[in-house]
């Protein structure tokens, strides 16, 4: 459960100050699925960084299950990320020199999982996204959709509470896009994750029951009745 109160993030570059987030209040219940949209430069990625503990707000609170991420030390924040938060990025962000299986294993490294178990769990995660046959492939040997599935397996192998995705389909063509959305939605339903996704895709946004729109750092929430 997320509770954001007055989250503000300012970036200062020289004399200019950018209000990437400007007093954002938001509550996200466990198991929720929230889609964030908005014009470019609106602050979507910045919000996701606050939610994922990748950065701290200039002011305000980002409370995850009673812990204010804004006040945690870097070490503690790292632990929160390694245990509770899965990330999926627009450009996949796989380690180019590691195989699919090894890429997935990297998410288990900070948890101190033993090598053998790590391998098994990574293989299992890859099978769950339909890549059981590609364990030893390098990212460069896979299509964009396959790479993103490896990234999803990497995000979910540690069984986090939260899955954060920043334009997960932004680099994919339409066919792949639906495929990836299916994978993500299936996993969200099966695992009871809190799933927060930034997207530029209006089709996805339109279908979303809970939609947050960020413009110039200000957030407006639209809730639709479940279809």
């Amino acid at each position: 459960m997320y509770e954001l109160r007055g989250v503000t993030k300012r970036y200062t570059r020289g004399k200019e100050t950018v209000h990437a987030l400007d007093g954002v209040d938001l509550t996200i219940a466990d198991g929720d699925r929230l889609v964030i949209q908005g014009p470019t430069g609106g602050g979507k990625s910045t919000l996701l960084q606050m939610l994922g503990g990748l950065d701290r707000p200039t002011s305000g609170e980002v409370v995850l299950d009673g812990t204010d991420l804004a006040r945690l030390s870097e070490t503690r924040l790292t632990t929160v990320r390694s245990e509770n938060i899965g990330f999926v990025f627009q450009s996949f962000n796989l380690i180019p020199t590691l195989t699919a299986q090894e890429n997935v294993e990297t998410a288990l490294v900070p948890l101190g999982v033993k090598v053998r178990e790590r391998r098994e769990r990574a293989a299992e995660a890859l099978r769950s996204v339909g890549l059981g046959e590609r364990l030893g492939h390098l990212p460069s040997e896979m299509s964009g959709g396959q790479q993103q599935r490896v990234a999803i397996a990497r995000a979910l192998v540690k069984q986090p509470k939260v899955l954060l995705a920043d334009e997960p389909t932004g680099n994919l063509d339409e066919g792949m896009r639906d495929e990836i959305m299916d994978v993500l939605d299936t996993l969200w339903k099966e695992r009871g994750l809190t799933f927060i996704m930034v997207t530029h895709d209006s089709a996805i946004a339109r279908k979303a029951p809970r939609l947050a729109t960020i413009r110039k750092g200000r957030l407006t929430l639209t809730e639709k009745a479940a279809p």
Partner: protein
Amino acid sequence: MFFTYLRRELRRRRKAALVVASGLALGIALVIVVTSVSSGMGKAQDKVLQSLYGLGTDMTVTKAAAPAASSSERPRFQFDAREDGDDSEQSSDRVMVQGFQTLAASTVAKVSAQKGVQGAVGGLSLQVLKVSGQFTRGQFQQDGTGGQQGGPGGNGGSGAPQGEVQGGGANFDVNSYSVYGTDVTEPALGPLTSSKITSGRTFRTTETAARVAVADSAYAKEKKLKVGSTVTVKGVKYTVIGVATADSGDAAANLYLPLKQAQTLADAADKVTTIYVQATDSKKIDTVKSAIQKNVSGTTVTTSADLADTVSGSLSTASSLATSVGRWLSIAVLVAAFLVAGLLTSAAVSRRVREFGTLKALGWKSGRVTRQVVGEAMVNGLLGGALGIALGLAGAYAVTAVSPTLQAQLGGGSGGDGGPGGGPGGGFAGPGRQAAAKTLDVALTAPVSVTTVAVAVGLAVAGGLIAGAFGGWRASRLRPADALRRVE
């Protein structure tokens, strides 16, 4: 994961690794070659010095250079000219003390009594001039012109007024060789120690008065001397008991005799030309030197360092080149290599900002990411070290294989027996010094010591650490939010 990741990175980014490694390799190879060549130079110089000193000698004591020796000491030969038609040979040996300067034998005891002196032994260097040949008396002719003049050096004609001596002549050889009188009771010190007995035996410590000789191998070959042959010096017959081969190819003397015998031959009873001194502590040579100079008057003390200063020629040029230019060059290349390795590693981290940001986003601690970067840099460093050692060994081996000849001139070329102020050049009238300046050919080698290799390994590790420090510092400053950066 550390090793898997490391291995994968190095394999997939081989080129980048090789660039860093070969930069370091170049620096390390240069250090190895320069160090080895320098030590080869040192060895060559030691060899040159050893040929004068013998092993274990730290300094020599000679008589302080005094104004030129009186002319009465000059060699003089007397031959009786024979009647015309008498072609019997005459020969005469003139035995001179080398440098005409001697010390009393009691000085040896005085020197060895000095503090810090482990041992001292005196020796007498002699030069023997052998003149042999036929001498015929000239014929006095009242009138007449032309005809042969009296032979040079011969007592040919007693000049008479109004006439010339004709037909008188001399046909003779001048033969010069060096003799060194060695203290047979002290076999461990002195110039003979730099030679190996290659046939026969050396002197026994009891042979103080024996008529025995050890010949230098080169001289023995020239004169066809073997163990058992006899050599005659100034009418005294000596039995050759051994043949000695100089380690450096340059013997201290042609013939070695027991000291007593040499002293008798030169009419220099209880005299020595040089005292060879070994210090108890090779680090305190300078103190010992000043002690001797202060307490034993009228002496000049020459240490091997003094002597090394007088070595000139291509050896010393090359040696100073190796120590100055070579050292600076290798330091410069090494520093440049370290810097380049550091910058390249840092640049490689910059190119992987998103990768490391992602790992941090996944919950990798900053230290773990940094460790990975440092690990890669270390492997690059070690790779560079291995390459550099291979390259350096090959270079040093090539130098040794080619072994270029260097010339060493001793005595700084100061002509003649130095007058006052002649310094070590004049004062060091050791055996084997036929002339004030002496040229030796020494082959240059480049021996690679274990220490050098160890230093190279150390440098490789240092290079890796420096590169790792650059890269690691860069990596540690990356933020997990960098995972979301768009730019590659």
